[in-house]
C-alpha cells in the first residue's frame, strides 16, 4: 500500500487512536516531541485549499484528509458542460498523491462527528480521532420547500447543483425539440454560487441556439433581484433576443409546487407554467455532520479563525458556513481556507492570530466567448463577528466583445491555477 493512500485498518486505527489518546492529556501548545493531529474533512475547494496551505507545516503536524469520493467534479465550469462546449472529464480531479505524499488521505464516508470526544465516526464503523478538525462538507438541500419536489423526483428532474450531474442536465437539454420551453426555478439566498442559475440559463440558451433551435427560457425566481443582473439582461438581449423571461418573486416567480405529471410549476401567486424541461434549483442549507448540532441553516464561525461557535477545536470553511457578506463560491472557499489554515497554525503554535483579508471573484459565461465578473475584497468587522464587503464591483456594462473575451481568458486562468493549487 502506498504511504499516502491510507485505508484505516483496525490495527492501524487502534495504534493511531492510542498514540493520540496518550498524547492528548498533555497537549498544551506544541511540545517538542508532540505532533498535533489535524484532520480535514472534505477534499473540494474549501478543504483542499486548507490542505494545500497546511501542508507547508507537515513537518510539524500530522495531517489527515477525509474525503468520501475518490474523484471530484468541480462546480465551476459545470455549466460549460451544460452548454455543450466542455467535457465533464475536464472538470474531474483527484488529490494528487505525489503532491500530498506527506498527508494521509482517507477515502471514507463520515457518519458523524462527536466534537466533545473529538472523534469522527465513519459509515463503516471505523473511527478517527483528532486534536484539531477542519470541516468543509458543502451543502445540503431543503427538500420540503416545494410541494411535490423531493429526493425521489430529483432523480428524474435533477437540480445538477454539483459538478458531477452536469452531464445529466446536458443530456436533457440535448433531448429537447424545437420550440421547447425551459423552466428554471432559482432559489432564495443564501445558496451556492449566486450567479450560477443565470449562467446555466445562458448556456442552455447557447446550446439550443447553436443547434438552430427556437426556445423560450422562463426563470421563476424566489428573489426580487440577482447578482450581475444588468450584465445578464444585456447579454440575453444581445445573444438570445426574445428568448428569455425573468419573473421576480414580487411578480409571482417563487415556485411553491411541482406538478410532475403535467410537467408544470406553480408559483405562490397561483400561476401555472408548463415546460418541456424543468430545472429546479432548491433552497439550500449546510450539510450536517455533527452528533449534537442546532437547527441553524449554516455553521456559525469566528470569522478570523473559522472556529465553530459551538464546537471547540473544530473549524469550518466554504459553502457550509455563514460567511457574512461573502458569497458561497469556490473562490471564497479558497480565500477562507487560507485564512483558516494560517490562523489554525497560529493557534496550534501559540502564535498571534492575524487579521484576515479575503477576496472573491465570480466569473459568469453567457456564451463561450462572453464572460463578465463580479468581485470584492472583504474584512472582518470591528466587532470581530462578521465578514463584511469593502464594496462590490462588476465588469463594465459597456465592455465590448474583446473585453468580454479577455475575461474568458482570466476565468480560464483562474480555474487552471486554483485547480492546480488544490489538487496538484
Amino acid at each position, binding site marked *: 500500500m502506498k504511504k499516502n493512500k491510507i485505508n484505516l485498518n483496525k490495527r492501524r486505527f487502534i495504534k493511531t487512536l492510542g498514540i493520540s489518546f496518550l498524547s492528548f492529556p498533555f497537549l498544551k501548545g506544541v511540545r517538542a516531541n508532540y505532533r498535533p493531529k489535524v484532520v480535514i474533512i472534505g477534499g473540494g475547494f474549501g478543504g483542499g485549499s486548507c490542505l494545500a*496551505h497546511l501542508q507547508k507545516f507537515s513537518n510539524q503536524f500530522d495531517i489527515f484528509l477525509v474525503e468520501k469520493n475518490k474523484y471530484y467534479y468541480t462546480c465551476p465550469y459545470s455549466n460549460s458542460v451544460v452548454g455543450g462546449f466542455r467535457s465533464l472529464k475536464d472538470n474531474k480531479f483527484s488529490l494528487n498523491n505525489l503532491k500530498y505524499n506527506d498527508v494521509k488521505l482517507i477515502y471514507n464516508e463520515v457518519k458523524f462527528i462527536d466534537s466533545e470526544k473529538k472523534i469522527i465516526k465513519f459509515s463503516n464503523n471505523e473511527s478517527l480521532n483528532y486534536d484539531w478538525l477542519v470541516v468543509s462538507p458543502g451543502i445540503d438541500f431543503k427538500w420540503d420547500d416545494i410541494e411535490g419536489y423531493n429526493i425521489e423526483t430529483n432523480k428524474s428532474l435533477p437540480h445538477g447543483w454539483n459538478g458531477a450531474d452536469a452531464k445529466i442536465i446536458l443530456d436533457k437539454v440535448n433531448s429537447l425539440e424545437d420550440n421547447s420551453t425551459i423552466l428554471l426555478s432559482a432559489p432564495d439566498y443564501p445558496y451556492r454560487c449566486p450567479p450560477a442559475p443565470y449562467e446555466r440559463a445562458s448556456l442552455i440558451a447557447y446550446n439550443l441556439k447553436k443547434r438552430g433551435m427556437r426556445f423560450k427560457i422562463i426563470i421563476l425566481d424566489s428573489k426580487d433581484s440577482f447578482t450581475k443582473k444588468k450584465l445578464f439582461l444585456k447579454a440575453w438581449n444581445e445573444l438570445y433576443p426574445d428568448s428569455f423571461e425573468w419573473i421576480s418573486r414580487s411578480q409571482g416567480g417563487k415556485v411553491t409546487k411541482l406538478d410532475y405529471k403535467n410537467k408544470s410549476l406553480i408559483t405562490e401567486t397561483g400561476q401555472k407554467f408548463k415546460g418541456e424541461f424543468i430545472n429546479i434549483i432548491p433552497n439550500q442549507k449546510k450539510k450536517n455532520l455533527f452528533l449534537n448540532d442546532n437547527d441553524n441553516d449554516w455553521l456559525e464561525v469566528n470569522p478570523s479563525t473559522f472556529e465553530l461557535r459551538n464546537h471547540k477545536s473544530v473549524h469550518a470553511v466554504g459553502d457550509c458556513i455563514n460567511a457574512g457578506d461573502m458569497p458561497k463560491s469556490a*473562490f471564497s472557499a*479558497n*480565500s477562507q481556507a*487560507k*485564512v483558516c489554515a*494560517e490562523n489554525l497554525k497560529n493557534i496550534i503554535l501559540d502564535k498571534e492570530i*492575524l*487579521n*484576515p*483579508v*479575503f*477576496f472573491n*471573484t465570480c466569473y459568469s459565461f453567457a456564451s463561450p466567448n462572453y464572460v463578465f*465578473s463580479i*468581485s470584492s*475584497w472583504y*474584512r472582518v468587522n470591528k466587532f470581530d463577528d462578521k465578514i463584511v464587503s*469593502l464594496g462590490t*464591483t*462588476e*465588469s*463594465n456594462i459597456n*465592455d465590448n466583445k474583446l*473585453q468580454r473575451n*479577455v*475575461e474568458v*481568458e*482570466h476565468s*480560464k*486562468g*483562474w*480555474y*487552471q*491555477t*486554483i485547480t*492546480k*493549487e488544490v489538487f496538484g
Partner: protein
Amino acid sequence: MINLLTIPFFLCLLFLQKPVLSNIKDEISIKMIVNNCASCHLENNHSDLIPSFFEIEKEVFIKQMIDFQTINDDSIMHRITKVLNLEDIRALADYYYEKK
C-alpha cells in the same frame, strides 16, 4: 451649532483619504493579502493564461500595479488594486522580490 449633515460629510472625507487596505504592515499581515493573490498568481505551476509577476523586475511590478490602479477600466486588476495605496504596493513588492 454644528449642522448634523457635516458629520457624515467629514466621516466620508476621512474614509476617502485612507485607502481601505492601507497600513497593511500594521493592520493586515502582508501574508494575508498575498494568499489572495495566489488564487491566480501561483509562484510555481501557475496558469499560462495569467501573467506571472515572478518573472518581472520589482520596479516593473510596482509600475504595473500603479497602472492597473490608475486606469479606471473596471478590469479585474483595477478592481483588485484600487483599494491599495502606494505603501501597500511597495509592501507587496518587498514581499515578493525580497523573497527571491
